[in-house]
């Protein structure tokens, strides 16, 4: 019921806004077909290509030169630099009330390419690990590299063809929303700081793409994810405005085996100018000893650009941690309003309401938040 009402509300809100589609990952089918049309990485995210710069400039209130450091620092053609800085502040009710402010990201990127081979390095701040006894973290405990890999690309300098990556990165799986609090990220196998060491073979072209990654739990640091396994994701564009995908991930860790299978779909509704993206996963877990719960994780998001620099997202998530037991499902509704002030600066008003176990005495309190999120791209 909750999900149904939320979808209805999403459609109503989206229908009230007007404009055209351009830029940002939520617009994949409205302008370009693949992530590599705008990003250097076959997974999307991070450094932008020339086309990505163009999109960033065209869909912003005040424009500005979109290149690294506004183009004031000339770089050789084999080198790309960039960075992302994010922070947020606002009010949370989860379910205790608090006014909060926190940094989210401070990463710089280096990408060097030579004849189809490239090396990618992400350096940035990390949350320092807690030290017992009020100790102070050392410098190396405050900085790290989330991603570092070498890549071979069949189409040197292009945005399609075969890619092979070896190193530390996030396995490509599912829709890969930017916001890690989206249910299919948080509960769907690709949580925040879920990057780890692996090998990926990936093929991307406008009509379809496929990604296969084998990975291991990070042996060098205390990681967020302790799983080793294999993840696969494939997406077929049935039409320039419609795609469907399939996903599977098998992982093991000490005392736990987990299998995920799911589907994705994206549809760009031209008359309404709305991109609908959906992902649904079924998860089976085998815990050491008795217990093998089945779960589902789903997320649906509608995205509608309007004006020359605004984007409205309305998302609905559903997560049921054990299908056999009442009261363990949660539903969340997200309403995010983005304003692309310049080609480098984005402000996002993020809002969530989350309910647990609606209609069950085993449920929980309603939570939510309103946060203003600032994002600066170097």
């Amino acid at each position: 019921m909750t999900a149904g009402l939320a979808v209805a509300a999403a459609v109503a809100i989206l229908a009230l806004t007007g404009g055209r589609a351009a830029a940002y990952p939520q617009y994949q089918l409205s302008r370009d077909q693949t992530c590599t049309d705008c990003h250097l990485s076959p997974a999307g995210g991070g450094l932008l290509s020339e086309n990505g710069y163009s999109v960033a400039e065209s869909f912003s209130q005040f424009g500005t030169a979109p290149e690294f450091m506004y183009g004031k620092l000339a770089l050789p053609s084999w080198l790309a630099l960039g960075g992302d800085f994010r922070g947020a502040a606002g009010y949370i009710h989860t379910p205790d009330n608090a006014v909060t402010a926190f940094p989210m990201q401070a990463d710089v990127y280096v990408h060097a390419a030579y004849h189809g081979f490239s090396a990618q390095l992400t350096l940035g701040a990390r949350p320092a690990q807690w030290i017992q006894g009020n100790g102070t973290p050392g410098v190396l405990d405050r900085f790290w590299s989330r991603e570092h890999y070498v890549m071979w690309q069949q189409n040197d300098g292009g945005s399609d063809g075969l890619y092979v990556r070896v190193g530390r990165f996030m396995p490509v799986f599912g829709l890969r929303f930017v916001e890690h609090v989206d249910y299919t990220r948080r509960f769907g196998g690709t949580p925040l700081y879920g990057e780890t060491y692996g090998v990926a073979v990936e093929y991307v072209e406008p009509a379809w793409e496929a990604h296969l990654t084998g990975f291991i739990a990070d042996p060098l640091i205390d990681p967020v994810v302790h799983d080793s396994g294999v993840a696969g994701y494939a997406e077929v564009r049935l039409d320039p405005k419609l795609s469907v995908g399939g996903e599977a991930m098998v992982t093991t860790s000490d005392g736990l085996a987990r299998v995920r299978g799911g589907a994705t779909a994206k549809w760009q509704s031209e008359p309404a100018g709305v991109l609908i993206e959906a992902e649904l996963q079924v998860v089976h877990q085998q815990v050491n000893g008795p217990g093998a719960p089945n779960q589902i994780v789903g997320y649906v998001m509608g995205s509608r650009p309007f004006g020359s620099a605004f984007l409205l997202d309305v998302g609905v998530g559903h997560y049921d941690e054990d299908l056999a037991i009442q009261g363990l499902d949660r539903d969340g509704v997200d309403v995010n309003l983005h304003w692309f002030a310049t080609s480098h600066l984005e402000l996002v008003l993020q809002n969530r309401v989350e309910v647990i176990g609606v209609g069950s005495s085993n449920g929980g309190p309603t939570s939510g938040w309103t946060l203003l999120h600032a994002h600066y791209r170097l």
Partner: protein
Amino acid sequence: MKRLVLIALWSGACSSATDDRPATLDYITETILAPSCATAECHSAFKQEVGDEFDTPAAARRSIVANTLVAYPDDMTVPSGSYLIQTLRVGEPSILDPGSGLVRMPYDAAMPEADIRLIEKWIADGVEGAQCVPNAQDRGCLVTAGPQGEPIYQVVACTAGNVGDVVETCTGTQMCTFYTGNGQCVAQ
């Protein structure tokens, strides 16, 4: 989209009000504590906020014992009074910001009452798997409350992950340490 809504409704319609999930440390850690608490910024191995880590059964065991989140055997009689359950249901004073009031966990989203009840059942059943953290000599620490509520630190022999015989009771100026030489009395 329609399919997601249908499955959501289906999952609610087919689930049971009877919670027959196993109340074991492995199950509770992997299906409740890890996804709810062991996020990147909180109680993962990566962050270990306030010294608690819940992403593996071994880490959860260490945190529960070392930080007395559940005091064995005292909390067995009233599990709702344990630090862990109090933190989940009503909140405890903030460790990071003392004086800021009670902080309920998980900080970013509430935990279903059914999950809290399962953890309570695990405590009432004997805190299986998290009574004792063994050192290389299979000894660990046991903290119990004395007549006036004062902590009594004891070095115990761990057996199969649980507490065994008391080996030594630390003196009033000592405590059993969990982090350096676990299972040994050291100066407080």
